[in-house]
């Protein structure tokens, strides 16, 4: 006789109720967002105000009196207009303090060449002081529209979409559950099964962020980030897409179900 407890029921894996796990894996933005026109104008206005209100640059602290550096510094600065008695100043009477016109922002020209030669003893240090030129925000992959590259759309989140040969639609990767495994473990293992072992990811939480019901199938989505490596499947179409491209790729119903999860 089987001694089953009356009140508890073991979950039976009936074919009418299938559980699957899905993976929303993203590459987080690499560079900051380009400010809009309004934002950049506002920032410019505020920073000009700040420069106007800021303290006088203490050149006596950074360039010690009597040094070559001080000489080079003073030579580069624009001479202020001094107040002389019985002279009419159409643009206002000069108000100087420590050689700074107090009614305007202070413009400082730094003797960059002097800085470089003075620290030229160690090659590494002078290399550090060289002017930093930022790379372009638009990469090669952006220009080629290489959807499989991770070095594109640097300002935005990229999400991995796959299309299996048997299916018609683009979707987030989903995996059938193996017996006794957990949702997030299965999602991590499944990604390596389809995309090769050379991908390093970080699962945000073992709590799924979405359940998608399709008839008798419940797909639980796990959120994850790619940290390093490459997704390189053998027999699968894939693309790293932004939210905007996601809308164009997937079906309309899939977009309405998933778009709120994306950034």
């Amino acid at each position, binding site marked *: 006789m089987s001694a089953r407890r009356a009140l508890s029921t073991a979950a039976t894996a009936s074919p009418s109720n299938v559980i699957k796990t899905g993976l929303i894996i993203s590459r*987080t*933005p690499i560079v*900051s*967002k380009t*400010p809009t026109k309004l*934002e950049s104008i*506002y*920032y410019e206005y*505020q*920073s000009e*105000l*700040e420069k106007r*209100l800021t303290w006088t640059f203490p050149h006596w*602290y*950074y360039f010690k009196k009597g040094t070559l550096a001080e000489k080079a510094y003073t030579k580069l600065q624009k001479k202020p207009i001094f107040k002389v008695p019985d002279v009419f100043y159409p643009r206002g009477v000069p108000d100087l303090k420590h050689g700074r016109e107090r009614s305007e922002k202070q413009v400082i020209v730094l003797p960059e060449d002097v800085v470089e030669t003075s620290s030229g003893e160690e090659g590494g240090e002078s290399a550090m002081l060289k002017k930093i030129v930022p790379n372009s925000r638009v990469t090669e992959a952006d220009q080629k529209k290489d959807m499989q590259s991770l070095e594109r759309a640097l300002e935005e*989140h990229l999400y991995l979409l796959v299309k299996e040969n048997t299916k018609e639609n683009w979707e987030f990767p989903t995996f059938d559950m193996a017996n006794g495994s957990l949702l997030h473990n299965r999602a991590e293992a499944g990604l390596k099964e389809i995309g090769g072992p050379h991908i390093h990811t970080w699962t*945000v*939480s073992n*709590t799924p*962020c979405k359940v998608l019901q399709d008839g008798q199938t419940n797909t639980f989505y796990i*959120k994850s980030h790619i940290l390093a490596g490459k997704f390189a499947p053998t027999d699968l179409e894939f693309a790293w897409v932004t939210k905007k491209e996601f809308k164009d790729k997937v079906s309309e119903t899939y977009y309405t179900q998933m778009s709120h999860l994306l*950034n």
Partner: protein
Amino acid sequence: MSLKRHFSTSSPAYKVGCSIVEPVHHLVKIDKRRLSPRFPELKYEKNDIRSSGFKPTVTHQDRVQEHYYHTVQPDLLLMAYKHGATTVKGAKARRWDGSSPYHVNRKAGKPAGAYSETADQKPITPKNIPQLSGLTVSSFVKEAKDNRLLQISSMLQLQQITGVKPKRVLAKTNVVSWKLKAGKVVGAKVHCKGRPASQFLATLSEIVLPRVREYNGIYESNGDKNGNITIGMTPEDVENFPEIEANQDLWPHLFGMHVNINTTARNDDHAKMLISGFGLPFTRGKKN
């Protein structure tokens, strides 16, 4: 006993053992400065451009905060999610029940099982995701007892590193063995909020701490149970700040400091989740 009011000693004459009448508090706070028609230019709010104390704050893009809103905040919501979570009361000071009139001014007992009060643990919803509320950087300068000028250089150090004007720190108590007198200036501190805090945190996590010797991360045991994490830095660590490294000959003395990262998290676990999202890893180990 006469109840005549003297200028020096009025309160003992009227004092009773316990207050029977509820104290009357002014319900409307009166700012007398505003009642007077004099000095209208001093009555503007600090964020008004006409005020003499105006300082622009939104001067550039805040990439740390941007990273928080785009990546950290949505992740935290998922990480901190607990199914069917309810509010768990924190450890509170044990107040007297008022069964005796002597209870009125009696000091409350320490909270049960804790050294100090802890906050109620509320379930994390989109409205209360932990975020960075500010940073406090402070240094206690022991040598300032003998050489007052060293305290000024410690202020200068904090000003250079954070870009915010520091405040003096005064000794609170007399400690004879340390030659410490109450009211003596013994250090400096600075509170950063907003953009300066983001800037400091980015410098710390991207430049300074990775260059510290034998640095594996902040020790996990750090924290005050209320969502504030403190990092200790030695003078050798401070040397790694780019502002100081650029002209080392200006800094004959460097001072160690404490960086107190304040968050709106109600416990240390959530605070550590948040701070590790800003690129400050945690390791198992003792407090540093």
